[in-house]
């Protein structure tokens, strides 16, 4: 065990997997000499050379399409897309390419990972602050994970690299400096598709991923002050969903709040709400509450941005409302 930043945990995962498997290689903008704008790939070009750690031109569309076919032909590429806001540029590669071949051709595998980071709170403006989770979670055949702790970041990235299917790995710009204990066992993997109960409770279940888990935990503290016992579940994987964890918690609490930093309409929180409708309707005593960004661009100025991002207070309010 060692204390390290979320970014360092990712770096360690990449290093270990590259040491273990020579078919793993990294490419992306500014990831080589500079080590990545969030420093996740720091030192890796020095260790593994310019062929396995490549700085690329600004060409997201082709890069993603190349990751798909490189992964079909004997390598395990890990592509960094600098901001989740640029995911629209890679969606053709995911929707019209990566999504279809496992079904059409069957005897191909596509073991690539697309890492990106999204989210607001850094004053980066409308084109650099979005969470577009539902765009990728909508795509059949693509797994999507979004860890919040350094340990899960490391363990899930290692699982993603070893997975035989495409995995989109969602990071958050405000998490990179978060420090916590991380195992140095290079075989410790965190399984894709398993949620984690980060706080047990009996009155209301709060489901979240990525940075919103932290806000949900704070919300649970606020609720505790009012005598409300909130269970907080870190889904960790957006697709495939850990249905058992969701239904088991709701069977206990009968109330649910779903939290996602992206837009509300057709957003990831809508799927969570609909999934709960499908599988836990009879256990629900109140409608599921969605806490999301309002349906608008992320503004730049601090008071504006802080007004729109989902936070502990809004989550707690939503939980209280379901209990009314």
């Amino acid at each position, binding site marked *: 065990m060692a204390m390290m930043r979320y970014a360092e945990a990712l770096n360690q995962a990449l290093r270990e997997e590259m040491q273990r498997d020579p*078919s793993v*290689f990294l*490419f992306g903008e500014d990831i080589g000499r500079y080590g990545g704008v969030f420093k996740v790939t720091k030192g890796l070009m020095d260790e593994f050379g310019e*062929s*396995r750690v*490549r700085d*690329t*031109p600004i*060409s997201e*569309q*082709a*890069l993603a*399409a*190349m*990751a*798909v*076919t*490189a*992964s*079909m*032909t*004997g*390598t395990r*590429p890990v592509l960094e897309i600098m901001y989740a806001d640029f995911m629209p540029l890679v969606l*053709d*590669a995911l929707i*019209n*390419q990566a999504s*279809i*071949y*496992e*079904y*059409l*051709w*069957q*005897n*191909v595998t596509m073991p690539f990972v697309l890492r990106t980071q999204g989210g607001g709170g850094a004053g980066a403006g409308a084109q650099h602050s979005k969470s577009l989770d539902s765009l990728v979670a909508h795509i*059949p*055949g693509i797994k999507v994970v979004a860890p919040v702790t350094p340990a899960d970041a490391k363990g899930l990235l290692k699982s993603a690299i070893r997975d035989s*299917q495409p995995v989109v790995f969602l990071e958050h710009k405000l998490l990179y400096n978060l420090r916590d204990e991380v195992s140095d066992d290079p075989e410790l993997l965190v399984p894709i*598709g398993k949620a984690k109960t980060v706080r047990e409770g009996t009155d209301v279940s709060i489901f979240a991923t990525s940075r919103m888990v932290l806000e949900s935990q704070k919300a649970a503290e606020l609720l505790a002050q009012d005598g409300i016992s909130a269970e907080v579940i870190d889904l960790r994987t957006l*697709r*495939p*969903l*850990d*249905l*058992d964890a969701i239904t088991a918690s709701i069977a206990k609490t009968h109330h649910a709040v779903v939290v996602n930093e992206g837009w509300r309409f057709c957003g990831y929180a809508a799927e969570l709400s609909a999934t709960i409708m499908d599988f836990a309707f009879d256990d629900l005593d109140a409608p599921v509450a969605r806490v999301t960004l309002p349906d608008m661009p992320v503004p730049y100025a601090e008071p504006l941005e802080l007004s729109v991002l989902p936070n502990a207070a809004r989550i707690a309010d939503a939980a209280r409302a379901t209990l009314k």
Partner: protein
Amino acid sequence: MKNSPSLDEQLEMHRKMVVVRRLEERLGELHKAGKTRGPIHRCDGQEAVGIGATAVLGASDFVTSTHRGHAHYIGKGVDIRGVTAEILGRATGTCGGRAGHMLIGDRDKGMIGGNAIVGGSIPAATGMALSIQVRGTADVAMCFFGDGAAQTGICHESMNMAGLWKLPVVFILEHNQFGLTVHHTVQSPVADLSLRAAGYAMPAEIVDGNDTVAMYRAVATAVERARRGEGPTLIEAKTYRMQGFSTSDMGGYQSDADLADWNRRDPIQVSRGALADSVSTERLDQIEAGAVAEVDAAVEEALAAPLPTFELFTRSSPYATAPEAV
């Protein structure tokens, strides 16, 4: 002449062109008889491009193709019976009827594969070339793409990276004068698209796309260069699409003069002419008859084959949305 095909290779290219031509003709008939499904993109008149270019490749080289891939499939060695059955949506098709004629892929043959997103074949081959370079083998990746596809952004991005990293990829621009129904002069202000290769520090060559031997020679040089680690080449093959864009094209925009002109340069006739000195007419007729019979048999077999039946995925499927979901 450098990199000329052997006589056997030339005969095999000839045979494969006839296979493709016969397939296209039979598909045309089957379409008229209501026995096909969806639009089918025939490549009559363009066979020499795909057949000539793939003749240079080995089994472990990769090819990516387009919506108009029949010659590429056959060229790279995909079984004509599987291809025919796939086009006819049969369980015995190369992809079990799931893919259809635009998306045929055969991993074992290195044909992966058809791609109906215009431009999609270009980064696909470039990514395979990246994989080859990272793994350090001497294989090459080849992509086919059209004059229409050359206007897509992803073409630019891919060629820039291929030139920058000297990737072992051969770009075959199959310039058949049209992108769907739109003439190339309405899609680009330059007629010879290969002049763009200079912008990627990449050598380029314009080749007679109706001549298998010319294609073979130019591509062989490009493949050798790629295998030596000297990077990509752009081959612009000038040819012409003798049929409509697809079986649903209502036509009316191709000039009779152009059609007559290009008909005189039919690649199968060009190939016959080139072989006339070395091979007897009888032998050529026999090869052609064999090819025709092979296709006809494949068509009959496919028509008699069962349609696929659907099975919903289980939770172990990569498409499951939840580990426990059905």
